[in-house]
């Protein structure tokens, strides 16, 4: 059940060598035989206990690195229960600080999403989040040409009901005037080049 690196040799200098170079340069290194660890543990019969559910899930995995279901591990992540019980989530009942939730639609996507504009520091972070959420990429923003070179353009509906290109106005102004977002595709988007 051991990893293939031979710990049994007394002077296994290679195994004990602490390389400060980047990892991944030695082909002999292997991932932990995750399955080996899983197979060692017999399945406890207390199915109601959260911890054992995690183990039974892992049992069925052979060589994938299947991490235990996060929500079901007792005592993980290791945060004091006082903190767990008392940390107010950001979107709580604070009179002055409602999260700035706006709908985000993307042309062609089956359903809309909602994001809290308040958690982003600025445009780059927001755009990165949108790219990640909808799995697309966006070009570089320029004042003259908008998001040139990409199939999509991020737009928003402002307080006046107009559809604007994301990125033209200062971030704070954008945050207070943005009512909803729409990721426009293709030909429609081209018409929103800024400054025209």
């Amino acid at each position, binding site marked *: 059940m051991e990893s293939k690196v031979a*710990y049994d040799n007394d002077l296994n200098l290679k195994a004990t060598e*602490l390389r400060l170079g980047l990892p991944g340069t030695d082909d002999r290194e292997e991932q932990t035989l995750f399955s080996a660890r899983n197979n060692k543990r017999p399945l406890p019969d207390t199915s109601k206990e959260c911890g054992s559910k995690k183990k039974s899930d892992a049992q069925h995995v052979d060589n994938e690195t299947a991490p235990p279901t996060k929500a079901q591990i007792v005592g993980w992540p290791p945060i004091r229960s006082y903190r767990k019980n008392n*940390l107010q989530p*950001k979107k709580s009942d604070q009179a002055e*600080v409602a999260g700035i939730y706006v709908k985000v639609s993307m042309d062609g996507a089956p359903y809309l999403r909602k994001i809290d504009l308040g958690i982003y*520091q600025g445009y780059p972070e927001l755009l990165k989040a949108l790219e990640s959420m909808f799995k697309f990429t966006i070009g570089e923003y320029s004042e003259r040409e908008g998001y040139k070179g990409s199939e999509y353009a991020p737009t928003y509906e402002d307080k006046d009901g107009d559809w604007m290109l994301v990125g033209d106005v200062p971030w704070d102004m954008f945050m207070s005037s943005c009512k909803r977002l729409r990721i426009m595709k293709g030909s429609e988007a081209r018409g929103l080049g800024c400054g025209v």
Partner: protein
Amino acid sequence: MNYFPDEVLEHVFDFVASHRDRNAVSLVCRLWHRVERLSRQRVFVGNCYALSPEILIARFPGLKSLTLKGKPHFADFNLVPHDWGGYVQPWIEALSNSRIGLEELRLKRMVVSDESLELLSRSLANFKSLVLVSCEGFTTVGLAAIAANCRFLRELDLQENEIDDHSGHWLSCFPDSCTSLISLNFACLKGEINLAALERLVARSPNLRSLRLNRAVPLETLQNILMRAPQLVDLGTGSYIHDPDSETYNKLKHTILKCKSIRNLSGFLEVAPRCLPAIYPICLNLTSLNLSYAAGIHGSELVKLIRRCAKLQRLWILDCIGDKGLEVVASTCKELQELRVFPSDVLGVGHAAVTENGLVAISAGCPKLHSLLYFCQQMTNAALIVVAKNCPNFIRFRLCILEPTKPDPVTMQPLDDGFGAIVQSCKHLRRLSLSGLLTDRVFLYIGMYAEQLEMLSVAFAGDSDKGMLYVLNGCKKLRKLEIRDCPYGDKALLTDVGKYETMRSLWMSSCEVTLGGCKTLAKEMPRLNVEIINEHDQMEIGSEEQRVEKMYLYRTLVGPRKDAPEFVWTL
């Protein structure tokens, strides 16, 4: 040394302050042992079951300050059942029946009842300081007794305790004659507070240096308090919400300008970010900032605040600060020594907003960093290697990658090399917590390089018994080892049984140790208590091969404890 009268020795020992040094002094010879114990005033007991109150009282008749710790560390994460133990009552009973004039009691992870608090308050005439951290079992009734009866109370510090709040009358129990308060922290109380009583108490406490309020104290009251106590050094705000255009807020802005001594700031349990500018003037003086419960401050507001805190030495923050926010910390807080980044999503099912990039930025910008607690989305070996090079001074390094057994996302390798670099570079490392995908190799490195390591926490790591053995063999100064969900079995447990008498305790849960293995250990080492926690009645007596779900062993002078509940078997 025989030529010196005892008083001279005692005077010399006065300069020996740390517990370790005094313990060492007491081992030199009988004379030194006697002089030391008669003059010792402060005692630290890391495990309340390692000895009895009677032993303590007999040895240190001059005891003035006692620190006691009860439950194992993993009790913080709900791994130890309720009613496991850790009661302070026997200690308070014994102390109250003795001649000891205890003045200070500091408890961590213990069960404290109202009865205990009442007994304490009535029997210790000179009692001055009560500090309770992560304790439970008491209510505001017990606090009322402390307030009412401890005539010389200087410090009442309640940190992260679960307290049943039966209303805020306890504050009114401080008599008018009580003017000695230096430190008052009730931030963890959940209920209402008698605000008028609080203001009067502050007004008659000229020595008040530290005040941490709970959620029920509104901004108006904060304003009034700060007016009467501009000398505060440590402030924890309660609710920090108001209309920034109001008269009250305006007054607060002016009052805060007079509070030039504030160095520690915390709280903001509820917050309106638009009111934050009022505290900007004191930011430059801050050496310690705890925003780890301030979920309402995030994004640009948080960054704006941090940019003003150039002298910070300690920062506790939520991960919503993000990698970008940590870059701001790195460029602003050049004096930073301790950083804790907590997850804002406490269920751990979402995304932590920080990654290895934030940590690398911090390590580059804050070379004085020596203590770290970092909950993150992911970590790479490359990043850890850079961090190790930038910050060789780590004393405490605790990394928690939220997803267990997650490998380096770039190379898909285990994080052995990264942590290996940390232990090799940080020669003063005393505490280490591991996470992510790890093989036996990381433990080989730890055993080889972590010479000063005293506490190690391991979860979901390693491939075989060798991992645990590398650590037990290599880390000569190891005192506490806690392991969960690792494949270590009887061979690892039993290879070096003598080691456990050099340690305070060992915790193993969801590993491969068996009942037979634990019994063997208990038999060979009579001065250890080997406790099995049989939580759901899973264990059958007599079946030696069955796995033990939770085992906790510790060295002790007094044998099996008499207060163990039914589900705890001492083998």
